[in-house]
């Protein structure tokens, strides 16, 4: 029997207000990722003002990045339990407060707390809910929507870097931090844009929550003993959390999680060590800066074009394959890098690496949505970005240690390359195993009951095949 849709549930609009969501997510990416990168422009000022060396000031950037990624699950929990709008607006207020308090700092420790922890927490509350929201509003053009939203990181850095430099020159770092705090307040605008949407798939969970709530209300009326209500609230919360994070037990998701660990380990050192490597092979400072700009611009192009490309009908069913292909190619580029010893060879490397770096970043949310579905997408994305945190923190120092001990960049780059290739192979292997299981099931279904085959136009064999297809449908969406 068809259920009555009391709530205004729809299918993903694939347009209309969805484009406003994309614009909102684009602005969120600018305000979080680009501002994080631009904080490093303040380091020279902090060094002279607080008389500290580079290593001490560089901690601020590491703290912001780390806290943003580590608290990503917290962001998805808040936006699931309240609403996406509330979550992002709260995040915007927190981040802005962090920056404003940072402008009054009198020591580097104050900056660690305000600029590092508070701002990072604010960013964490905004980032994954915004990306999850885009997934809810798009299905047919999902990759393109993600490409446009995530390109905000590259475009934001492009625009913000000279603007921040100008602000520092005009107002010194204190005034610049204050104005940057005002800019980050625009996250509240993005939050307001995130109009909630209930999809057909979201039918069961609100009912369960409703059941929990009615039970607690009944108990409150029945007995004044607060401990009983607490227990019920806890169990309800536990059960809702259990349901939210049920995807953690899916084998597909576990494979994705492990591959993300290796992929994040591999991709982060390049942005730290590319310029020193280029300088060590004889490229001038200006040419090295030019290479980084190429990397950034091609990253943006890769974001948008790969998103558009994988939305085409021919590639729509192969988004997973495109994702692992992009990671694998990046790993191969890494392996070739130690052999590239001059500028004319490094430019094509920068183009290729930048393009596929943008490509797989666009596809992370798409592939996650494929595996877990749109209901748990917010929580799943929270977990995926949480898994980025530790490799991001750990990988550059390990690469630096390798460079120091071996005296060249070869070992570090080879390690990163193999890490990314392993991640890609793991995904490929998992997909192959899944296909083999599916064909086995099909064979089993056909062989199990020969009598049923007489009724192949009837329901039984049809229902078994349908089951398999449904599983496919869940995982392939």
């Amino acid at each position, binding site marked *: 029997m068809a259920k009555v849709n009391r709530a205004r549930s729809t299918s993903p609009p694939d347009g209309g207000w969805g484009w406003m969501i994309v614009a909102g997510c684009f602005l969120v990416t600018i305000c979080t990722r680009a501002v994080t990168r631009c904080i490093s422009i303040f380091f020279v000022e902090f060094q002279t003002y607080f*008389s500290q060396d580079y290593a001490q000031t560089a901690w601020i950037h590491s703290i912001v990045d780390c806290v943003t990624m580590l608290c990503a699950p917290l962001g998805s929990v808040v936006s699931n339990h309240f609403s996406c709008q509330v979550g992002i607006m709260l995040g915007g207020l927190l981040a802005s407060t962090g920056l404003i308090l940072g402008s009054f700092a009198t020591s580097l420790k104050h900056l660690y707390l305000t600029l590092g922890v508070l701002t990072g927490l604010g960013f964490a509350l905004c980032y994954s809910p915004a990306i999850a929201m885009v997934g809810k509003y798009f299905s047919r053009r999902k990759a393109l929507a993600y490409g446009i939203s995530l390109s905000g990181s590259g475009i934001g850095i492009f625009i913000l870097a000279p603007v921040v430099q100008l602000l520092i020159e005009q*107002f*010194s770092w204190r005034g610049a931090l*204050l*104005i940057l705090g005002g800019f980050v307040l625009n996250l509240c605008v993005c939050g307001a*844009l995130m109009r909630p949407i209930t999809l057909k798939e979201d039918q069961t969970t609100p009912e369960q929550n409703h059941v929990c709530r009615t039970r607690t209300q009944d108990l409150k009326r029945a007995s004044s003993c607060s401990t009983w209500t607490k227990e019920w609230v806890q169990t309800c919360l536990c059960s809702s959390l259990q349901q939210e994070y049920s995807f953690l037990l899916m084998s597909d998701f576990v494979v994705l999680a492990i591959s993300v660990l290796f992929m994040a380990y591999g991709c982060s050192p390049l942005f730290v060590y590319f310029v020193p490597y280029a300088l060590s092979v004889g490229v001038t400072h200006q040419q090295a800066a030019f290479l980084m700009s190429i990397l950034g611009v091609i990253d943006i192009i890769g974001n948008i074009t790969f998103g558009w490309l994988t939305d085409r009908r021919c590639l729509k069913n192969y988004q997973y394959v495109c994702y692992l292909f992009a990671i694998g190619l990046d790993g191969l580029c890494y392996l070739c890098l130690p052999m590239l010893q001059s500028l004319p060879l490094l430019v094509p490397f920068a183009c290729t690496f930048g393009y596929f770096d943008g490509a797989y970043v666009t596809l992370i949310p798409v592939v996650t949505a494929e595996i877990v579905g749109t209901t748990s997408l917010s929580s799943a994305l929270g977990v995926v970005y949480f898994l980025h945190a530790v490799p991001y923190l750990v990988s550059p120092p390990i690469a630096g240690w390798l460079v120091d001990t071996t005296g060249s960049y070869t070992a570090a780059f080879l390690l990163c390359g193999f890490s990314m290739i392993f991640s890609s192979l793991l995904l490929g292997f998992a997909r192959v195993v899944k296909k083999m299981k599916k064909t086995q099931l099909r064979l089993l279904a056909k062989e199990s009951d020969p009598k049923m085959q007489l*009724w192949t136009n009837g329901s039984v064999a049809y229902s078994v095949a349908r089951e398999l297809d449904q599983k496919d449908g869940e995982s392939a969406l």
Partner: protein
Amino acid sequence: MTTKYSNLSLESHNLSVTAAPITSLPVQEEMRTKAAPITSLPVREEMTTKYSNLTLESHSISMTAMPMKENNKGNQICVDRGIMLQRNVTLERPNMPAEKNITLERPSNVELTCQFTPSGNLNSVNVTWKKGDKLLEDNYLVNATGSILYTQYRVAVINSKQMGSYSCFFGEKKQQRGTFNLKVPEINGKNKPLITYVGDSVVLICKCQDCLPLNWTWYTGNGSVQVPIGVPVNDKYVISGKHANETKLKITQLSEDDQGTYWCHAIFELGESEGHVELVVLSYLVPLKAFCAIAAEVVLLVAIILLFEKYTQKKKKPSDDGKEIEQGEQLKLDDSNGIENSGPRHRKNESVGQ
């Protein structure tokens, strides 16, 4: 006087001025005797023996008054004779003054050499040296090798009196001139103004690249008047410096009066050099205005978006009732279809179960 300067370094600087094809030797020798007062030699030798244990710096500038073709010939001649003058020969436009800046930090012996290739007769070239505008009488040599005329001037630079610009003049048809500017090292302050806020503290830095001044002093500039900053007066000003080649002035509790230009003077034995740093003191209201403008824009946009959302929701509600009624009818149809269809299906299942 000369005994005191025995520990000075010797610096030698060359300027070469080239102009013309070869002239005959005897004439050159004549020139030599004419131009170089040999009587001055013994004095110079005395000076050199005193300063012989010092470092020698040599700088050279080449000047030429020759047109291209002849200069090429001149180069060929240089090569033939195996004289490594070729690298000193540079093509410049005639009458362009050749100038060289020499940075001196410590007292030293300076040797300035000018090379000149005249276009005409070596004899006709009149060689003179000047310091600033004052004509120098002694302490210089004139020598001629092949077609090139050399003149060398030596000076013991002990204090700031010997600093300045020294010029060698080759008087021919047009007077060729080469200048050596003896200067103390330059100090780098900051080109862009430093922005600070009221009540904040700031550190002004003056640096010198490769030099070690004896002492540093700070002055505040009030227009063209420079007022020295007295350190022991109060805690407001603290002068410090980790290395000898830099100085730091820390100013605390800034107020708008502290705005202006600050001068740092580096004192060398050979003189003084200065750099400047500009300080701008703003009040907190300046960035606060920009912040308030952005905050107001954010509040406005949020209000507009939320109101728009409420408006579209209200619009949807009355039309939604209509939609629900339609859906209800659709459901009834579906249900009736279901009942009809379930009949045959039911029968099929029964037969399967058997």
